[in-house]
Every structure is written in structure tokens, then in C-alpha cells.
């Protein structure tokens, strides 16, 4: 029998994975908005951020410092990847670019395997504290961290893209590359920044959920795919749409696992994606 406390519990786990998907989706959208490119390596930044933090914390660094350093590492890595690997072939056609991001994903995953091995690593929670009982279900304190991080990131992105000159310039690149470059905006720099932002946010998602998941070099594949599903449902260039879709996806998934079938939850989620792609390719919230 499924009683009310289960329903609440499923909602919490949906909210947790939903926030994770939403963050990854946002990181994908930021890169896409500026450079019209979906990075299949986003899941690797997710893993590298989390595992870097695990290592730094185990080396005795205080949590907040390890947190900031791990974000920095992933941000720099993302910028390097854009400069060294994406820029040289940016005119080679979209097919080659897609395959390039797959190549980057394989390389980073391979590097993570060499650095951290095949074992799973777990991060200690950001704050100690007993699980909080809510309506008969329990809420891990880390879930509150995940949700607050997601909210803070979204506010930061909104301020950046709406209120700062740099953010508006980057949005201009997304609207019209040539026009933007004629106005003296460096599209190169904008793409670099977008990648840095994107990989930083991807890493942040990984670090936030690392205390709840066992992280291992290959753990980034599924979150990346789920993030992309959220983006496809939400519309490639809509940050709000992808956040809503990410949360929705997490919730639907949690209830499918809990109430219908854990075996076929991925089958259902992927079928859902195909249905959305086929009938509404621009996403449920996308324009045109």
C-alpha cells in the first residue's frame, strides 16, 4: 500500500533529482544560447566538479574553500576545452561539432578514470544534521542545500543576463552573431565565457548532489542525458523552460519509480522524450 507519506517522500526525491536536472539543463542552455552548441561533455564537468571536491576535502581543506576551488577548476577546464578544441573547428559543420563534444566527453571521462579510478566516492554532506521529518516522510538536509543552490544560481544567471552589460552582450551573440560582432562584441570571448559558466554550473550540480549519490568516473552520462531531455522538453534556448522541465522530469521519474515500475522508469522517460521530440521539436516552452 502506498500511503500519503510515500507520496511526500517521492516528491522529495523528485525535487532532488529535478533540481540536479534543472541545473544541468541550465548549463546546457547557457552554452547553447551563446555558441549554438550543445555540449555532450557537460556530464563530465558534473563528475569532475564533484570528484575534485571529494579529493580536496579529503586532503583536509575546509568545505567552503574546496567548494570554491572545485568550481574554479571546472570553469577553467571548460574555458580551456572551448579555446583548444571547439574554437579550431567551429566552422566545420554542426555534425563534426557534435562528434567533437562526444570526443571531449570520452577524453574527460577517460582522464577522470585515471585520476579517481573505478571506485565510487562519496562526499560528506555540506552541513551535519539529522534528517528532518515532514508529513511522515524524511527530508535530508542536503536536499535543502541543493534547492537553495539551484535558486541562487538561477537568480545569478538572471541578473547576469538581464542586468549586466556583459550578459546582455552575450545574449546579443545568441540573437545574431554577425550583428553582435559588428557592434564590437567579441563573439569569441562570449563563447569562452559561456563555456566557463556552463561547466561551472555543471560542476556545481555534481557537487551539490555528491553527498547523496555515489560518484564515479562514469556517473555523468545519465545526468547529462536527463539534462538534455529537460532542455528538449523546455526548449533549447529557454532557461525558465528548461528549469521547469527539469523539475517536472525529476518528479515524473520519482513517481514512476515509486508507483509504476522501477525497471521501466527509464524506458518511460526516454519514450516521453521521443514523443516530445517528434510532436513538438521546439520544446513545450520553446518558440516557433
Amino acid at each position, binding site marked *: 500500500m502506498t500511503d500519503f507519506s510515500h507520496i511526500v517522500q517521492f516528491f522529495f526525491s523528485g525535487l532532488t533529482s529535478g533540481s540536479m536536472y534543472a541545473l544541468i539543463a541550465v548549463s546546457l542552455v547557457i552554452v547553447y544560447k551563446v555558441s549554438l552548441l550543445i555540449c555532450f561533455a557537460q556530464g563530465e564537468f558534473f563528475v569532475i566538479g564533484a570528484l575534485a571536491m571529494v579529493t580536496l576535502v579529503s586532503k583536509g581543506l575546509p568545505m567552503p574553500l574546496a567548494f570554491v576551488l572545485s568550481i574554479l577548476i571546472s570553469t577553467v577546464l571548460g574555458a580551456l576545452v572551448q579555446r583548444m578544441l571547439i574554437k579550431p573547428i567551429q566552422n566545420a559543420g554542426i555534425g563534426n561539432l557534435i562528434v567533437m563534444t*562526444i570526443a571531449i566527453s570520452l577524453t574527460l571521462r577517460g582522464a577522470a578514470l585515471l585520476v579517481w579510478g573505478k571506485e565510487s566516492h562519496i562526499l560528506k554532506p555540506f552541513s551535519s544534521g539529522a534528517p528532518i521529518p515532514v508529513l511522515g516522510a524524511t527530508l535530508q538536509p542536503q536536499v535543502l542545500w541543493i534547492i537553495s543552490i539551484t535558486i541562487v544560481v538561477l537568480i545569478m544567471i538572471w541578473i547576469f543576463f538581464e542586468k549586466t552589460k556583459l550578459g546582455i552582450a552575450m545574449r546579443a551573440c545568441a540573437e545574431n552573431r554577425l550583428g553582435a560582432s559588428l557592434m564590437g562584441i567579441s563573439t569569441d570571448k562570449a563563447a569562452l565565457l559561456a563555456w566557463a559558466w556552463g561547466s561551472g554550473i555543471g560542476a556545481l550540480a555534481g557537487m551539490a548532489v555528491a553527498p547523496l549519490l555515489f560518484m564515479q568516473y562514469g556517473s555523468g552520462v545519465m545526468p547529462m542525458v536527463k539534462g538534455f531531455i529537460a532542455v528538449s522538453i523546455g526548449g533549447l534556448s529557454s532557461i525558465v523552460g528548461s528549469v521547469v522541465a527539469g523539475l517536472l522530469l525529476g518528479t515524473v521519474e520519482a513517481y514512476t519509480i515509486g508507483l509504476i515500475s522501477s525497471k521501466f522508469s527509464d524506458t518511460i522517460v526516454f519514450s516521453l522524450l521521443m514523443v516530445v521530440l517528434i510532436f513538438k521539436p521546439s520544446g513545450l516552452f520553446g518558440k516557433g
Partner: protein
Amino acid sequence: MKLLKQFWWILPLAFIAFYPVTLAGGSPYWSGLLIFVGIYVILTVGLDLLMGYTGQISVGHAAYFAIGAYASGILTAKYGFSPLGAMVIGMVLTGIVAWALGRPVLALKEYYLAMATLAFNEIVVTLIIGLEWLTGGASGLRDIPSFSIFGLVLSNHVHYYYFVWAIVIIVIACSLAVVRSPFGRTLVAIHSDEVAARAFGVDTAKYKTRIFVLASVFASMAGSLFTHYMGFLAPDDFGVLTSINILVMLFLGGIGTIFGPILGAFFMKLLPELTYQIHDYELLLSGLILIIVLVFMPKGLFGIFTAIWEKMFAKADK
């Protein structure tokens, strides 16, 4: 030199024909390796038709490999079908699935297409894992009999070797015939400019679906061969990683060349053998190889071969 230029294809053919008895010296290990190369050549050539010639990206080619493999495995191991019959049923089934998917999925572009193909791959794998009563689930499907044609049983690796490579040659011949036909030229037209092709009255959806069906049927065939050679199936061999592996083989060998996939499959299957002591490096290496190919050699290994070839003959012709 002139003779070499005209009859160069005899060399690789001779290599294929005499390999198990000469270089491999009857070793099951080395013949086995080339059997896998052959199976992957079939997969990669199919993907080349779809991606290299028609420009339709697929990150889920292993799905059709899986359907063929499991159709053959289930029908022969559980229902006593003859391997040849099961293989044909697998091909028909895969063809129908690809045909039904083709029109809606191939209407998508770029990322959406990449993601839809990936999603289909995941759907197939999760179904294989989930439908345990049929497929054996994650623990695998056992007791698959050897392949046999009209009472002739393929009982050892040498038999399989010749059978697989005979099919490889048929697949390559078919693919060459396709790309050199008006049909193939239409595919190239769709690749370079789909809107223009449509403006010229080409029913692009029809052409894309047809080549998709052909590529999928090839993959299904490869799956049946894989099944009977292995005698055992597990879902791990058919995931998105396998699809990406096929993609790496295609780009490494040379996309849009038909012959390139042979080089790509050969290299990528040999790589784990060369690095078996340092197995953990495999993922990193295949990523780096793909990056190098994309940045420095857009035509892949085949492009390098043809460049050397042309230089050789440019000197000889003087």
C-alpha cells in the same frame, strides 16, 4: 605500377582470404579478433551510408545491432528456429522498426536527431534489461546455437571468419552500388542542402527513411552474426557506448568513404589488444584519437592512405 593501381583491391582481398591460415596460424584468438572487426565493419559501413552520405547523425546505431542480435538469440535459443530463418526475421523486424521510426525521427535535425537516436538506443537497452522472461535481462541470454546454413554448421572460428567476411564483402559491394547509383547521388544532394534537394522535387523524407532502413538492416545482420559467434548475449554490448564506438570508428576510418570504416574498425578493435595491460587508458585514448581526427585529419585514415597513394602514382606517372 599501373597494374597495382588497377588491381590494388586484390591485396586486401588476398589478406582477408589467407589471414586465418597464415598470419593467425590457426589461432582462435587472432581470427576471433578479425571476426569482431568484420562485424563492426558492417555496422560502421551502414552508419557511413546514413551519416557520411546522407548527413543524418545517429548516436544510437547499436539499437538495431541489438534488435538483430536478440531476435536471432531468442528465436534460436528459445523457440528452435533455424539460425538463417531467425536472421532473416531479425532483419525484417529491424527493417520495420527503422521504417516506422524513420519518417518522424529523421524529420529532426542536429541535436534533436542525435538525442532521439540516443533515446531509442536507451529504450531498447532498458527493454532488454527489463523484459527478463524474454531476453534473460542483465544476466544475459545463454545457450545460443552455432550458425548453420542448410545443414552446414559453422563449428569453429575459421568457418565464422570466412562467413563474416563474405558478408562484409557483400555489404560493401551493396553499399558501393548504392552510393554510385542515382539514389546515392540523391543522398549526397540531401547531405549538402536538404532544402535545395526538396526544391528540386526530391521526396527527402522517403530517401532518408530508405537509407536508414538499409543501414539498420545491415546492423541487424551484424547483430545476428555476433549472437551466434558469441553464443551468449548481454545488454552491455548494445548500449550508447557501443554506438559511440561505432561513431569513433567511422570518423577515424574516414567518413563518407565506405572503405574507411574497414580501417577504423580494424584500428579501434586492435587498440584494446595493444593496450590490454593498461586497460584503463582505453577510454582516454579513443577520445584523444577522435579529437585528433576531427582537428587534423577530417578525412580520417582513409584520407591519409589516398593522399599517400596519389603521391606514389604522381611520381610513377612522371
